């Protein structure tokens, strides 16, 4: 395991500290564990809280700031945070307008956020939640726990965050969050695994000509393994499943090409080159494209493609001003 770290037991703490020290104009850390909130609390708006295991940087702390989240809760690497951490985050940012939790669909995340929510409600705080589940690699059925929440979650942060910043009420903010969840689909693939620092060994190993398809964001193996393909072929494989899941025909979309952590931007751009061509050919108009690292899996070498089907409201909120360490929009004017 070759990493720039000091001690596997201090990874999460030093990482959060390093993030907060880098961005004191945006972020403040609570004393009770790895909870990051806006440097200046914003009153009279619905507060957005998200989080999950560490290892997804810049998610989730990188999206705390004007126009996005109010707090991010970080667990141990790939491990959901605990209910009391979530409760502390909610308590800190809660306003009379209420709090919305944005939770990714994993058994652990759902249970811990549920318990945190219950604790906050017992204190009389108005809290609701949405559960993201954009990963089409996992079939949604009665016999599974449903699709996972992956990179598409960041669109929920951006769009619900923008509406909350405008002062909308909790039911409206929740409604737009659910609209994004209904309209975003993601799928990913990887050619090299990542290593949980405290585990010391990669979650799986891959031969020179193998790749994992349908990966999650916790370093786990994908839904299946197959022969490694070119960038374009891999993108086709993922796009096919995304486009088969909801009807994007004739619509306008936001595209996210999300790097898993060790995939260079060069490769992500090459992938987008093909994704843009395929969408054009299919008559799906690209409104905005985001290429970069948004929801990573430490140093996994892989990527995911997310497509969000847009309407006018989502378009406007996507372009609304955001000022966070990892997502900034100038706002005010619309490009192009």
């Amino acid at each position, binding site marked *: 395991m070759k990493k720039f770290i000091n001690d596997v037991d201090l990874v999460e703490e030093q990482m959060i500290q390093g993030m907060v020290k880098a961005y004191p104009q945006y972020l403040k850390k609570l004393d009770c564990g790895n909870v990051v909130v806006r440097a200046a609390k914003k009153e009279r708006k619905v507060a957005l809280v998200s989080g999950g295991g560490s290892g997804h940087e810049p998610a989730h702390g990188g999206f705390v700031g004007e126009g996005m989240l109010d707090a991010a809760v970080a667990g*141990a690497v790939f491990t959901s945070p605990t209910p009391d951490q979530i409760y502390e985050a909610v308590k800190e940012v809660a306003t009379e307008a209420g709090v919305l939790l944005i939770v990714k669909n994993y*058994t652990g995340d759902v249970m811990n956020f549920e318990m945190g929510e219950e604790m906050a409600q017992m204190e009389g705080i108005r809290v609701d939640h949405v559960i993201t589940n954009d990963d089409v690699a996992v079939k949604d059925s009665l016999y*599974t726990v449903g699709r996972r929440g992956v990179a598409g979650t960041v669109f929920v942060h951006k769009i619900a965050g923008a509406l909350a910043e405008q002062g909308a009420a909790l039911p409206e903010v929740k409604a737009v969050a659910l609209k994004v969840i209904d309209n975003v689909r993601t799928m990913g693939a990887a050619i090299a695994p990542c290593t*949980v620092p405290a*585990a010391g*060994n990669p979650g799986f190993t891959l031969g020179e000509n193998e790749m994992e398809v349908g990966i999650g964001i*916790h*370093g786990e193996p994908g839904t299946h393994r197959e022969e490694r393909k070119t960038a374009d072929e891999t993108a086709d494989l993922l796009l096919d499943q995304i486009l088969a899941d909801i009807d994007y025909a004739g619509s306008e979309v936001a595209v996210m090409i999300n790097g898993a952590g060790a995939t260079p931007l060069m490769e992500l751009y090459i992938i987008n080159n093909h994704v843009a061509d395929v969408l054009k050919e299919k008559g799906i108009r690209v409104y905005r494209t985001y290429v970069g690292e948004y929801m990573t899996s430490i140093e996994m070498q892989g990527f995911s493609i997310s497509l969000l089907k847009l309407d006018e409201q989502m378009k406007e909120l996507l372009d609304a001003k955001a000022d966070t360490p990892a997502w900034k929009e100038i706002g005010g004017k619309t490009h192009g």
Partner: protein
Amino acid sequence: MVDGKKLTAVLMQISHKMTEQKDYLTRLDAAIGDSDHGINMARGFEAVEKKLPSLADKDIGTILKTVGMTLVSTVGGASGPLYGSAFMKAGVAMAGKEDMDLSDFLEAMRTGVEAVQMRGRAGAGEKTMLDSMLPAMDAMEEEASANAQIHTVLKAGVIAAWDGVEGTKDMIATKGRASYLGERSVGHQDPGATSFAYMLETIASMF
């Protein structure tokens, strides 16, 4: 049979077992999960261990509840709320008791297992910790109803728990993180079922 002192001694041994099996449980989780079950359990019980000295003179209910709350607030992931709820609910069932006899123990256990079922919304055969918990409970209750000694009861539980662990290998996971692997989860043993079997085994070794 079991007072606060004995209970904290048992919990101490469970903590040692989790630390001892940390890497093994993590390796099991690497195959079908996200490589952290052993790390999670060891972290949680390390926190429990720190609290034990101050708990030895408390009643059974308080001890179990404190353990549950400590696990909930330090483990995270799926196993934190599950094991945490189990201990917390067991604590509620044992509230105020200074001593547990065999039937108290079985009641506490059953309450804990039911808490896991409720919190995780899972049942038997879904390749989770329940697949060692449920058969172990059944086996222990059956032995107990035949008036067996505690040692015999626990031994039957341990055997059933490990059988259950073995059984998870053939299952397709439909709950938890392993469910994303679908058929690929077959052939691998469930980490949570394994950690429970170690827990029960540790308890049995002390009676």
